[in-house]
């Protein structure tokens, strides 16, 4: 456990010691700022009944941040270590494969959550400006955080897995971006095939990321969605462990 915490600290520290960490934070800040601006301009024109979090979630910015930032955050996890050779010093230290995978995953997830903190500042400012406490209730806020966290789990675990397959950070980022966007686009595929008979449209509807997220921003925490996100995460983490272990198969 102590070794795991040492690894986790190093992973988190690595983000803040590296240039790419700050670039990610700055880019996300910019996108959040733009989304804040568009939110304010919409609210200035007409009143709305929609809760603020859902308002934000409906904009493209949320998905843009999620799909763009997660590959950039996770691309370094394994690929950089493999490229620089420190993977060999890491894996010849008395550390198991699972703690390494979990520490890298949780480190990236921690950084991802830090990256989102300005969002709550934005929402709080709007709430202050509108003077309406119901615009952002603590329940919806908590639901949104949980939703962002769970979606992050899925995309971060995907990114870590992609990174463990290659020596190149670029390839890692491209792979996780392509698969990530693919997963996201399934949400749009679902309505268009809903008229088809059989099980296919039903499965697609269940796999839709957006559908699952919508409930969270309304403040509804449904265990089905939690289980859905967590099982995808566990699946990718399992693949990640196998990829790390695969050096012993060759």
């Amino acid at each position, binding site marked *: 456990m*102590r*070794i795991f915490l*040492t*690894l986790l600290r*190093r992973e988190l520290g*690595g983000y803040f*010691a*590296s240039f790419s960490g700050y670039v990610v934070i700055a880019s996300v800040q910019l996108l959040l700022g733009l989304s804040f601006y568009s939110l304010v301009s919409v609210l200035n024109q007409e009143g709305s009944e929609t809760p603020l979090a859902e308002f934000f979630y409906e904009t493209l910015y949320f998905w843009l941040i999620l799909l763009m930032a997660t590959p950039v955050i996770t691309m370094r996890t394994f690929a950089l270590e493999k490229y*620089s*050779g*420190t*993977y*060999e*010093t*890491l*894996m*010849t*230290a*008395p*550390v*198991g494969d699972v703690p390494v995978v979990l520490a890298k995953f949780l480190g990236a997830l921690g950084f991802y959550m830090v990256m989102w903190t300005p969002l709550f500042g934005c929402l709080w400012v709007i709430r202050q400006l509108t003077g309406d406490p119901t615009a952002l209730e603590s329940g919806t806020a908590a639901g949104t955080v949980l939703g962002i966290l769970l979606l992050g789990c899925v995309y971060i675990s995907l990114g870590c897995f992609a990174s463990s397959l290659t020596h190149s950070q670029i390839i890692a980022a491209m792979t996780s971006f392509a698969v990530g966007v693919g997963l996201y686009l399934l949400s749009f595929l679902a309505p268009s095939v809903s008229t088809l008979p059989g099980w296919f449209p039903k499965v697609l509807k269940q796999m839709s990321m957006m559908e699952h997220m919508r409930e969270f921003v309304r403040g509804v925490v449904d265990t089905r969605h939690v289980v859905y996100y967590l099982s995808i995460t566990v699946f990718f983490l399992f693949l990640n462990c196998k990829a790390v272990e695969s*050096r*012993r198969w*060759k």
Partner: protein
Amino acid sequence: MNLPQDGGGGFIDEPQAAEMSTSWMIEVEDLTKRYGGHTAIDELCFKVARGEIVGFLGPNGAGKSTTMRILSSFMPATSGTARVGGFDVFHEPDEVRRRIGYMPENNPLHTDMRVREYLKFRARLKGLLGGRARDRVDVVLGQCGLEEVSGKVIGHLSKGYRQRVGLADALVHEPELIILDEPTIGLDPNQIRSVRQLIKDLSVKHTVLLSTHILPEVEMTCSRVLILNQGKILAADTTLNLQRMVSGGGQVVAEIAAPERDLRACWEGSPEVLEFNLSPMDGDYIRCALTPRDGVDLRPVVFDLTVKHGWKLRDLGRNRHSLEDIFVHLTRATREEEEG
């Protein structure tokens, strides 16, 4: 020539071997590693006793790094067994890793960290607790001469200092065995000298296995050499024995000013000299290359003879073969064997 083909019995006397059988640091038996169709190492057998400094010598691609990676349990072998401190590298990797300090080729480091921070991270990773980790980091910083750069970012250090950071990392948890893959590659002569001295100092407490393709390096630092070529061990012995083996038992070269006829008669009449070869040099001097019978040291004999005859002697020395000669000799021998 009769070369010991496996490292097991060739260099340690039997009674000594029996006594030490429980204290082998490394035991490798029939170790083979294949990548695809390529065989990187082929049925390697050798043993290393505790406290030895053993040099792995071979050209690039001989299988040195592969063997070291298997020993550090980074990757498994295709077949065969390897044990470090009595623990199997494949079945008990954690026990093995706790006992070794491994510095891979090109010495990879986290270049974004500071020296002390990095060493503390590595110490904790290797299971040292807070206070103990701090103490050990201080010790290795001193041992490797890193105190003055302990606060610097590793990426900003010179190659020599980085190499020392790698060594300090390998040492930090006081491992029984230190495995260093090409520890002096890319360093300038001064840095090489200081790193070699450091490695020599380590032998007091640790067993060291180092690889290199630079011949004088093993000659200077190692007590024993394993010569590796194309995944096989060509020879395993002390540097001294290897020299003796190739030079045919201490050839002596003398430059003497004397009539060639007298010299010829003199060497023919001397029972200690098995073979001789004379070549005229500048002035009256003649270069005599003398091969002794039964490995006798011919130098006093030569000296006595020149004094007796009143000849002038300007140079007298034993022809010491460098490892380079041995290496060329051995690799050529195997090549000829293959072709023949």
